[in-house]
């Protein structure tokens, strides 16, 4: 193995892949975790209201809460279909 390693240059090990995947996943999960408990429900309700008027796909509505200092910003993104 060590000999092959010499010739193949710096091939990424599976442990390095594991670390990278975990770092991405966990930072994403931590963002959601720090949000208030009502956020998923709010997203579902908003989606239902939007859907009443426009046909949008579930994954075209995103909602996030950012904290900046002592203010919180609720950001809602709806991607509307072209027509």
């Amino acid at each position, binding site marked *: 193995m060590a000999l092959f390693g010499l010739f193949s240059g710096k091939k990424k*090990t*599976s442990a*390095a892949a594991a670390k990278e995947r*975990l770092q991405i996943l966990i930072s994403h999960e931590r963002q959601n*975790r720090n949000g208030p408990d009502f956020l998923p429900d709010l997203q579902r309700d908003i989606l239902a209201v939007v859907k009443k008027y426009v046909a949008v796909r579930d994954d075209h509505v995103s909602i996030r809460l950012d904290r900046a200092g002592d203010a919180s910003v609720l950001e809602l993104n709806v991607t509307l279909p072209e027509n």
Partner: protein
Amino acid sequence: MATIVTVTSGKGGVGKTTSSAAIAAGLAQAGHRTVVIDFDVGLRNLDLIMGVERRVVFDFVSVIAGEATLNQALIQDKRLENLSILAASQTKDKDALTEEGVGQVLDQLAEMGFEYIVCDSPAGIERGATMALHFADHAVIVTNPEVSSVRDSDRILGILQSKSKRAKEGGKVHEHLLITRYDPARVENGEMLSKEDVCDILAVKLIGVIPESKSVLKASNTGVPVILDDDADAGLAYSDAVARFLGEDRPMRFVTPKKQGLFSRILGGGD
């Protein structure tokens, strides 16, 4: 004042019960009056790992239900006079663990003079696990160097930081990372996450690294906490972890690959 130490992980099969037994035995060995409680109602196993399975008459749930006194339910360890075991119920519903009931039992144990109460949490994030987390002063997060275990550990950290009693009162649970089933040779080959990788990802202070070892199965086969096996790497690594928990500064052992002789390499010996 008793200190409540919860041993938790989220994922099953990573070594929570082995670690609970070892940590409790280690604290008792260090001269502290210690009780270890199994929170896995319906799937108890701590009794088996501690070798007291034939001495369980009453359990944690029967104490909460008022069917037995704590003195009747506590099992005194035959090897360590400072150590007692409180088994989980094997039959009753896990909802039997109420916050009020568990709190009362913990208070009573503190009044009886126990210095450390080690809570062996079940896997998952249901009642038994959340109860064990809720009352924690310290949490030992048991993690294997493997993706699903690390992810679940992070999830448990999130629960500790938001839902535990200490967090709700504006405080913080002391978190300690215990990496188990560590294989230094595979880490060196890049086949396994290193202890540094896991610490980076979880951002928790490392309290110990337990090497993958045949002695752990041997210990559970015979019902003796592995920490009592002075010849085992894993036992010595647990002793180090307990000493660090108690404030001692000890270097990490068993974290580099063992040097194998030519013979054992040819014959395929070693662990």
